[in-house]
């Protein structure tokens, strides 16, 4: 083969990019699509099982559990603020902002997990009490696993940010991680509305 005559030189292009230009952004979007599908199907199963009960719910949610769930929702929403702050800092490459944002965000995440444990201790039925208990624990449990792993991920990133050296692509990682956390928060909202604000559940 004779050497190619024309070339397309790309050496001037950057070595990282934020947002949908970044392949990892798409990878995480795929993960979110998978998990959303799983949550939707779990919620569909919830409605399917709900339809089997003449009297729903078979066990009432205690008042203080409803309160704890409302607090959890509040803390969840609140946690999006520091993470948003960390994201902004990542775009500008500001180390302090990323550290504070991630630290506060993961702290609030762990608060949610702690409150969840309290909720489960008080809730008054188990996964093996009835099908309602099974699906309730399944959905809320799965979401808690996501909250926990998201918070641990924040810690991991914090480790990188404190130990250094910090590369440009770690800024993208912080940003992607933050976006995933928004997903964790956003997926909680329909779960909260369906599982806790259902008029029959509220009235019980």
């Amino acid at each position, binding site marked *: 083969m004779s*050497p*190619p*005559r*024309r*070339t*397309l*030189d*790309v*050496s*001037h*292009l*950057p*070595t*990282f*990019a934020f947002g949908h*230009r970044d*392949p990892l952004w*798409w*990878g995480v979007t*795929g*993960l979110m*699509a*998978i*998990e959303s*599908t*799983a949550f939707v*199907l*779990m919620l569909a*199963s919830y409605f*399917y*099982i709900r339809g*089997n*009960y003449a009297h729903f719910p*078979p066990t009432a949610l205690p008042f203080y559990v409803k309160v704890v769930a409302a607090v959890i929702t509040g803390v969840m929403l609140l946690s999006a603020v520091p993470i948003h702050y960390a994201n902004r800092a990542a775009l500008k*490459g500001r*180390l*302090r902002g990323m550290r504070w944002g991630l630290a506060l965000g993961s702290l609030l995440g762990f608060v949610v997990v702690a409150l969840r444990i309290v909720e489960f201790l008080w809730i008054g039925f188990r*996964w*093996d009490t*009835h*099908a*309602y*208990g*099974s*699906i309730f*624990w*399944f959905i809320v449990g799965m979401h808690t696993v996501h909250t926990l792993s998201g918070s*641990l991920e924040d810690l*991991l990133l914090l480790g*990188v940010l*404190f*130990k*250094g*050296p*910090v*590369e*440009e*692509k*770690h*800024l993208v990682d912080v940003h992607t991680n933050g976006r995933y956390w928004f997903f964790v928060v956003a997926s909680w909202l329909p779960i909260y509305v369906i599982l806790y604000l259902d008029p029959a559940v509220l009235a019980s």
Partner: protein
Amino acid sequence: MSAPLPTPPEPPPVRDDEAWERLYLERTWAPKKGLIGWLSEVHHTEIGKRYIITAFVFFLLGGIEALLMRWQLSGPEKQVMGPDLYNQVFTMHGSTMMFLFAVPMMEGVGLYLVPLMIGTRNAAFPRLNAFGYWTYLIGGLLLYGGFLLNVGPDAGWFSYVPLAGPQYSPGKRVDIWAQMITFTELAGLAGAVNLIVTVFKHRAPGMSLNRMPLFVWAMLVKSFMVVFAMPAVMVASTSLAMDRLIGTHFFNAAEGGDALLWQHLFWFFGHPEVYIIFIPALGMLSSILAVFTRRQVFGYLPVVLSMVSIGFIGFGLWVHHMFATGLPQLGQSFFTAASLMVALPSGVQIFCWLATLWGGRLWLKLPLYWVLAFFAVFVTGGLTGVMLGTYSVDQQVHDTHFVVAHFHYVLIGGAVFPLFGGLYYWFPKITGRMLGERLGKWNFWTFFLGFNLTFFPLHFLGMMGMPRRVYTYGVERGWQPLNLLATVGAVIMAVSITLLLVNIFWSLKRGEVAGNDPWGADTLEWGTTSPPPSYNFLHLPTVRGRYARWTAAEDQPVVTGVRSDRKEVLVTRLLDAAPDHRAELPGPTLWPLWVALATGVMFIMVIFTPWGIVVGGVLLFITLTGWFWPRPPYKEELAPEQPS
């Protein structure tokens, strides 16, 4: 490979000099050596090959199980196996063929070919690829380990509850099945995300979406279907495992659960699954058709659109597997209509291909043989499918061998025939040698004959009332002659597969050397050596038309400026594939293997104790930390602010 290289005098990251470039690339992309090197492999061609070989081994195992069943059914009241073993064997056969052969095989072919076809150096997430393979392997070994220890699952490949529930299936058999599902689906999802992102972000400059090869489109549609279908079966199998292991009541009617919920969740996955197997086969078919008719496929746009619409409609069909469960009238009509509707895009495709054949000059080589046979076999399966899609007919032949005949016509016709065509077509690319022509013809004709001999009689047996999944039948039924015929057919198929194996092993050593492009084909993988080097292309290509190599300009430009001293690849934009940035991919590592093993410990241990979650969770956290821990940094890529 790691032999000391002469140090270039003044090493610029990129030089226009081919020899230096090759030297650099070889050193940068060289796999590690020895066993550790083998275990830490992350290149897509190697992972793809492993998927293909492993899936083929499972195909052989599933085939042996099929032979055992046909032997048992060859005459009335035979005693090859008792009812219990027969239950295990048909469950193993079905589960193996669906979860361990068909889906991973298509995935493997996709992982091998797609990065080559779109002109990049590796998949977008190389380590995720390796992780997927290891999880798949663990799932398969779990299933067969269980089978050897007489805890092989026995509730059918879709494990209906209540039969599969804790009450009617005590012991560990169904648990093993449920965990195998979780493993393979995890692997499937990992591969799907990987393919989607690779296709979205790593296409060669110029390969805009509307210039992508049809095969790549097929893999893309398939991957999207995986993303939305497989979570359903993971939710289902997890629920089933929990019902059996920790006493939940998802499917227990006495406590408010529902057995039909299982069927909904399973078929919400199970029907798309059929298309997950079938659509990649369509992709192979389109590649082969274009090359062996020496022309562009008729109607690129309608073919792509019908693949996409099959992808959507495929999700609206699941209930037609449940026609016998007593559905409300509206449901019956809706799902009958949806089931018949899928015939439209399928029809559009078939006619586009026929038109391609019509106008082309047929180059009758082995790949085309399998494609032509596909038309005959698949259309037959499609016809019985239209029959079964009708509620009233389904009521008659539900759970008989008519259904067995139908789905083998669709599955083998729709997936195995194109797959074998693809094998003959791409074998030269993967190995560098052609498959033997003579043996290949014998292989083809015996398979075609054996297949029809095995499965055509089953239509009649089904209409005569022979039920599926029953280990024997009485003499007075008069089903013997047709059954014997079917068994003879199965033996002929076994002979045929043996010929194929002989051909493969013979050709690996003695086959004619293929060269880069034995077929004069259009897609980019034929532009590099056979087998491709560890960096795929010496120069990353660019594209200016749908059939990349056929439409290339005399002096089609190549990409320069991607570093060859790092595992760098070009990232392009989603729609128009214009160059966007350069990104470094990770190299060989053992972490994916450790993470897969941690996942394995978790899923297998929970069969015995819920502590598996805790132990596995901790192991997963540790191994994932290792996976994500950053490599030593590059000076010129540091962020503006650093920790003091």
